[in-house]
């Protein structure tokens, strides 16, 4: 890449970042994410790991179902574990699975979408049939069936969510690739002797990446919500704390009838806030990628 190209790319990226910052929803979303991200990373500093352990908690004299007034800051659960510790440490799983699953979704979806759109023909037909099949099959039962079959671990959950979510990304990417492909510069490139790989890399991908980024940001909430639901149903990793697992415990240990609101309110609020943040960021990115959406 020549230097003027680098400068141009740098300038346009900076431009995008500045415009992003100017949008209030985008700004709020980003700040919220940074806060939660920091919390997840700084977990050991914010809550001692022993709070997650039932035995250690008993030794520490924690009560069962202690309300926040008796055990600061968020009370305890049926096993005397600190809810705050679960919230802080649980954010790691929820955020990590959400992001990792989205990476899988985007990677597979982009690969399928670009391949189908760029090469067309029979390959496109076959890939699109597969994609449509996945779109028709109900998402949650498929995830449940796969999770049950594969076993309960964080990596399996990531795989399951990725496998069930990639089709909508693939469809979006393919549509965009088809639009780009029609543009003349692709034909001109080819007549100059460019290989397919070159065209994809230099021409197709840069024009598709904006859309992919926006789609990715909007896919993260889906991944997070799916992980939460799967954990709630008992398919999450039993060893790790996650917000979904907190809700699972809350329900099955009758936190609701006990009105132990400190146990199920924080994880749900955490999910709500994080999902909203990603949605705001995603919508802002969408508007930047397609200015026609700006007036919505």
């Amino acid at each position, binding site marked *: 890449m020549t230097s003027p190209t680098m400068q141009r790319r740098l300038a346009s990226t900076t431009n995008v970042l500045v415009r992003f910052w100017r949008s209030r929803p985008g700004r709020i979303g980003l700040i919220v994410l940074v806060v939660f991200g920091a919390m997840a990373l700084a977990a050991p500093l914010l809550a001692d790991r022993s709070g997650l352990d039932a035995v250690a908690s008993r030794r520490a004299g924690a009560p069962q179902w202690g309300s926040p007034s008796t055990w600061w800051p968020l009370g305890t659960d049926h096993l005397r574990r600190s809810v705050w510790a679960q919230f802080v440490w649980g954010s790691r799983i929820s955020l990590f699975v959400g992001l990792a699953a989205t990476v899988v979704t985007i990677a597979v979806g982009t690969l399928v979408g670009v391949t189908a759109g760029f090469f067309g023909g029979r390959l496109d037909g076959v890939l699109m049939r597969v994609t*449509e*099949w996945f779109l*028709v*099959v*109900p*998402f*949650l*039962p*498929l995830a*449940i*069936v*796969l999770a*049950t*079959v594969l076993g309960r671990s964080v990596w399996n959950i990531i795989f399951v969510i990725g496998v069930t979510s990639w089709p909508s990304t693939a469809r979006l990417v393919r549509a965009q690739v088809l639009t780009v492909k029609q543009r003349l510069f692709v034909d001109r490139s080819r007549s100059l002797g460019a290989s397919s790989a070159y065209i994809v890399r230099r021409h197709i991908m840069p024009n598709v990446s904006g859309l992919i980024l926006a789609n990715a940001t909007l896919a993260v*909430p889906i991944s997070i*919500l799916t992980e*939460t*639901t799967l954990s*709630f*149903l*008992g*398919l999450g990793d039993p060893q790790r704390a996650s917000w*979904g697992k907190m*809700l699972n415990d*809350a*329900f099955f240990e009758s936190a*609701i*009838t006990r*009105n132990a*609101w400190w146990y*199920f*309110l924080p*994880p*749900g609020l955490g*999910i*709500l806030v994080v*999902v*909203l943040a990603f*949605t705001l960021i995603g919508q802002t990115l969408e508007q930047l990628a397609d200015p026609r959406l700006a007036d*919505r």
Partner: protein
Amino acid sequence: MAQFISKKVLGSTLTLVFVLVFNFFLFRVVQPDPVANLFRGRNVPQARLDQMRTDFGLDGSRLTQFWAYLRETLQLNLGFSYQSRQPVWDDIASKIWPTVQLVGLAAILSAAIGIIGGVIAGWRRGSAADYSITSTTMAFYSMPDFWLGMLLLVAFAVVFPWFPVGGMTELGVEHSGVGAILDRLHHLALPCLTLTLAYLGEYAIVTRSSLLDVMGEEYLTLAQAKGLRDIQVRNRHAVPNALLPVVTLAAINFGFVLSGAIAVETLFSWPGLGKATSDAVLGPDLPMLQGLFLVFSAAVIVFNLAADVLYAFLDPRVRPA
């Protein structure tokens, strides 16, 4: 038109076949020997087990097993549940109606409220009404539906014990006639409210977006020039065009809705297909899961087909000439 419909039906049948194939191979991978699983922990003589394997057609090659599976499925023989030892289809059949009641009602309510909200928000874009409707619906859409249910439960079944905590009917009491209906509604209230609030966000957002797309069109100015009131322009010309994609969405959603209440049914102990799924997960009751997966998929496929046909009826541009 008949040709159009039959083509669509063919496509749907093909998809259903793929679902069956998938179902078969996935579960065969996990449970190579269903008979042993079925009688796990019970002392059954080996000869008996072998006999059962032959009866169930499990001693043939993969292909013959698949044909057997296909045949049996079409006869609604979906195997036996590990947990209840009853035929899977009987279990499922008894749970369809409770789910349809709950989810059907919520689907209708959420569509109606969501669409109205979306129309108001879109027509008055940028106003306070738009802002409040859009942010509320976005909030509901961003939370786990069962968590919303938990909040409603705590508020209206625990703190203010106006509604039951779960179940479909009152335990130990036999209601009849009007009393039975009221009891059912009483138990239906909270889970249905949860699902309605969870679903309406999507309708509101899509309707609003669709209406905004329509609002720039010239035929609306023409309608105004004819002397129609603002509301008349909106309702007679804008909304029918804006509703086209929403109707398709609603039809498709009805299909997904059968499987969309898994977590909420579990939370409210509502004895439908969703709760059956989460119970089956705990086993794991694989034949049950397999059967449920098939039923859920079939529902989606059927409703997608209905949506395509319905859209053709509503949008004259899509119909074959």
